[in-house]
């Protein structure tokens, strides 16, 4: 098969000349009918058998090949009168405008002509890409009233979209027929054609006016036979039928010497049909419709847009060896693994060549066949024959006949490398390589730590899985795309894979100072996290032995690991007490021992630069980081599982005293707004720079109310117990924020639309419940209640207004940023960083002289910096 390979050096585009069209044609199509009464294709019709085969079993009349082999052959239609190719109408206009109607020369003075020819020659050698600039200039410059060569007076040409040209004579406008246009274009000498930006060898301007129309092979426009036996033709065939019918009528009328008027009408109709045959969305003319009223899908529509040939069939091919199903979480998988349902594993295969090392194993797989899991679906013999194992013949006999050099298409099994993907694939971590774990049930399973790179959750998300078929592909996937190789993201210069939600809460609860564990508890936790090794000596020996959570975490850290950092629970005090932090937020790891501090989002979370996870990957490699995530993270989950972690509504209840304080604060704020409105009404309000008086009032009111909400939230959080689960989650960064808590307990606060208070609705008021012109907080969307205290109907309405805006915004934003992403990717996809540090296009054009101006790979950097001097100093001094 692969005997001769050639590389394409260049591609040149030109126009098809009438001779070329006739030369490549196998039949002149003259009949508008397709099939006769017996259902056989008519010779000289659109379904002529010489155009290629579409029905299986038939031989092509032209090349003798059968369905798969015959490429199809073009036919042609001899047009009775020429028509303008609508795609070139604009070019024709420009050429007509800048040439003499009589002799075809460019309307430039002889000096100018000389000058531009010289320039053109020079440019062709030195800057071939800039030749079009000269053409543009020439076309702009041709304003001569009289041809310098033949001395004829020139008339202005008018172009009417899509395909009509007029000449402006003093007596009035004269329409130029396509024949007239064509004769004018024919007159232009080759040297002038070149100056107009065309290569006369492959694109004479008169070829833009069609005299012969190519008819695509029948395989391009296959007819479909419906169940009822009725043939249904392709849209293109329909369009071609129209063209032929009008063409024949035009021919008859011309031959019969019909009046000019009738001929012109038919000619225009032919022009319309040809135009819509190329593009049925040409502006200025009604689209050609099917009998049912549906617009026809002609050539341009087949290619254009998202559903067109390019985006849908060439860039977006469907593939074999892939699977798609719902995903669900499984914390007992490694981050590198993906759980594949048994039913999927029995369909996806990997071709494995039989050697003397695996022949026994392969025989066993063949005996198992396609229905028992570690089995096989096909065998490919060295002569290329495929043996299907689905139909139960004697599989044992087949297995016995297996020999070295055969290829077995075996089921995927534990440890195979597959690619896992979730759309939208916005960055490279959207497709990662995983190792297969075949599991029961029907969903793909994945470790929770890989949710952030895929941006996945389990509310019904589906993901795709692809099985690489060659050794090279698998090796590449394993080395470059494996999940653990993607922990560090080029987006942050930090790990994108890490702890989320319960992992963080669990880590915090485990490493808190008050967590003391008995021998049984420790054993239970460690066995669950696959720990192998000695139990450390207990931190407390008397009266009973107790271990701290920090000790357990330390077991999974490298023995020479050092780290200092602040946890998310850090209060950001003015003076940091470091080790003596009252919140235990100062994390110190010395020689692999967690000495002080709790682990939370800032320390082990996903997407956190300068965290323990980040240092582990950078200093110890991805294997160590993966081990830590597979083992220590399971410790956190086991701990939080055993302990229990829950919230109920009554835990978000505030005591009467707190509620009173909040009410006072909000009442004060209301007083303040009233006062502001009073000042405004009295005309005493001071205008803020760059704002109108009304805007000033609005901002001031917004400020006051926002402040009130914040204060209310603060009060609420003071009354929360330290053990409150929601508070722990907010503080550690596991989920939710203090603001969410304040909304639940204290006060929801101001609802806004476009960053302003709610003004829309009725004239001068938002709802009929308020007086016109009421500027108060209540009338403009301030929600006094908290979620727990329930919103009153008016508040609820305002709240849903704000909520709706948020939803609409996200919908709009995703579509806009999606389009932006598409354009960026199309522009940048073929750029690459070369070994000399430059960024170049595929043809060697330099785009950046040093990648990112500093040559730093952000994935290998410390939060964007090439070297982290602080860390180096710390390492040198600390030792």
């Amino acid at each position: 098969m692969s005997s001769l390979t050639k590389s394409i050096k260049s591609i040149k585009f030109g126009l098809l000349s009438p001779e070329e069209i006739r030369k490549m044609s196998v039949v002149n199509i003259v009949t508008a009918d397709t099939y006769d009464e017996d259902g056989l294709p008519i010779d000289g019709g659109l379904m002529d058998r010489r155009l290629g085969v579409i029905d299986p079993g038939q031989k092509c009349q032209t090349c003798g090949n059968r369905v798969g082999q015959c490429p199809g052959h073009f036919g042609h239609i001899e047009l009775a009168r020429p028509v303008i190719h609508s795609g070139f109408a604009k070019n024709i206009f420009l050429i007509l405008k800048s040439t003499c109607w009589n002799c075809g020369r460019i309307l430039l003075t002889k000096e100018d002509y000389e000058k531009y020819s010289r320039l053109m020659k020079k440019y062709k050698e030195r800057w071939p890409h800039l030749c079009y600039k000269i053409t543009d200039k020439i076309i702009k410059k041709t304003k001569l009233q009289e041809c310098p060569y033949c001395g004829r007076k020139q008339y202005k040409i008018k172009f009417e979209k899509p395909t009509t040209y007029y000449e402006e004579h003093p007596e009035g406008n004269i329409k130029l027929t396509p024949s007239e246009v064509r004769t004018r274009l024919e007159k232009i000498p080759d040297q002038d054609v070149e100056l107009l930006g065309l290569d006369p060898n492959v694109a004479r301007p008169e070829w833009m006016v069609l005299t012969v129309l190519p008819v695509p092979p029948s395989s391009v426009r296959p007819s479909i036979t419906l169940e009822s036996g009725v043939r249904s033709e392709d849209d293109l065939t329909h369009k071609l039928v129209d063209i032929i019918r009008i063409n024949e009528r035009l021919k008859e009328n011309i031959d019969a010497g019909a009046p000019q008027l009738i001929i012109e009408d038919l000619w225009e109709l032919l022009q319309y049909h040809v135009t819509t045959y190329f593009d049925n969305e040409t502006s200025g003319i009604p689209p050609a419709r099917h009998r049912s009223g549906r617009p026809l899908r002609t050539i341009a529509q087949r290619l254009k847009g998202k559903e067109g040939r390019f985006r849908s069939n060439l860039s977006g091919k469907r593939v074999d060896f892939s699977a798609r199903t719902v995903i669900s979480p499984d914390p007992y998988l490694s981050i590198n693994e993906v759980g594949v349902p048994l039913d999927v594993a029995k369909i996806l295969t990997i071709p494995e060549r039989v050697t003397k090392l695996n022949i026994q194993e392969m025989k066993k797989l063949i005996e198992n066949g396609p229905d028992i899991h570690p089995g096989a679906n096909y065998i490919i013999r060295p002569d290329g024959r495929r043996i299907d194992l689905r139909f139960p013949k004697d599989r044992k006999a087949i297995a016995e006949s297996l020999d070295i050099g055969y290829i077995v298409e075996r089921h995927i099994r534990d440890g195979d490398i597959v690619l896992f993907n979730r759309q939208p694939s916005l960055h490279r971590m959207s497709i990662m390589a995983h190792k297969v774990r075949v599991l029961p049930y029907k969903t793909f399973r994945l470790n929770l730590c890989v949710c952030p790179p895929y941006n996945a959750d389990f509310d019904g998300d589906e993901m795709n899985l692809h099985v690489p078929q060659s050794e090279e592909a698998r090796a590449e996937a394993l080395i470059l795309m494996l999940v653990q190789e993607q922990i560090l993201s080029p987006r942050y210069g930090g790990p994108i894979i890490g702890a989320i939600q319960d992992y963080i809460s669990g880590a915090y609860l485990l490493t808190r100072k008050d967590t003391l564990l008995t021998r049984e508890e420790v054993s239970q936790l460690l066995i669950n996290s696959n720990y192998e090794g000695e139990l450390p000596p207990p931190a407390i020996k008397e009266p009973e032995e107790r271990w701290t959570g920090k000790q357990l975490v330390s077991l999974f850290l490298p023995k020479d690991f050092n780290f200092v950092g602040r946890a998310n629970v850090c209060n950001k005090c003015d003076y940091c007490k470091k080790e003596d932090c009252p919140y235990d937020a100062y994390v110190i790891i010395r020689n692999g021992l967690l000495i002080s501090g709790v682990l939370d989002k800032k320390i082990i979370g996903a997407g956190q630069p300068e965290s323990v996870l980040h240092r582990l990957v950078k200093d110890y490699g991805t294997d160590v980081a993966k081990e830590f995530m597979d083992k220590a993270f399971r410790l956190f989950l086991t701990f939080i599982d055993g302990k229990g972690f829950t919230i109920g509504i009554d835990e978000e209840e505030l005591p009467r005293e707190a509620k009173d304080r909040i009410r006072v604060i909000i009442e004060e704020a209301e007083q303040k707004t009233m006062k502001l409105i009073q000042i405004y009404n009295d005309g005493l309000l001071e205008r803020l720079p760059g704002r109108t008086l009304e805007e000033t009032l609005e901002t001031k009111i917004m400020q006051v109310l926002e402040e009130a909400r914040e204060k209310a939230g603060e009060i609420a959080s003071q009354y929360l117990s330290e053990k409150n689960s929601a508070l722990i989650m907010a503080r550690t960064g596991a989920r939710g924020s203090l603001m969410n808590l304040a909304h639940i307990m204290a006060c929801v606060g101001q609802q806004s639309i476009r960053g302003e208070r709610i003004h829309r609705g009725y004239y001068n008021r938002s709802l009929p419940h308020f007086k016109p012109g009421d500027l108060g907080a209540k009338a403009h969307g301030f929600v006094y209640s908290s979620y727990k205290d329930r919103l009153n109907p008016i508040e609820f309405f305002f709240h849903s207004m704000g909520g709706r805006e948020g939803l609409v915004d996200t919908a709009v934003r995703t579509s806009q940023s999606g389009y932006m992403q598409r354009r960026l990717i199309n522009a940048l996809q073929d750029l690459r960083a070369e070994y000399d540090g430059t960024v170049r296009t595929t043809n060697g054009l330099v785009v950046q002289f040093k990648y990112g101006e500093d040559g730093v790979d952000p994935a290998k950097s410390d939060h964007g910096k090439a070297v982290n001097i602080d860390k180096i100093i710390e390492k040198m001094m600390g030792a």
Partner: protein
Amino acid sequence: MSKFDIFKHELVPKAVVLSKEEVEELRRLYGIRKEQLPWIRRSDPMCRALGAKPGDVIKIIRKSPVAGEAIAYRYVVPW
């Protein structure tokens, strides 16, 4: 007409026209033809200020937030 020196503006990077030898050196350094450099038009204010002619190569030294100083080259084309 009093001419405004664009290079005096803080946002305009420094630029010089390279000599033949420097261009040769640059070509060898990156192993490219001159046309493979990014292009700049002769009509660009910077080229006009430098008096660069088509075929010249100019060197632009700009301040960069990440690299301190970044150097770029431009191949001058007509227009």
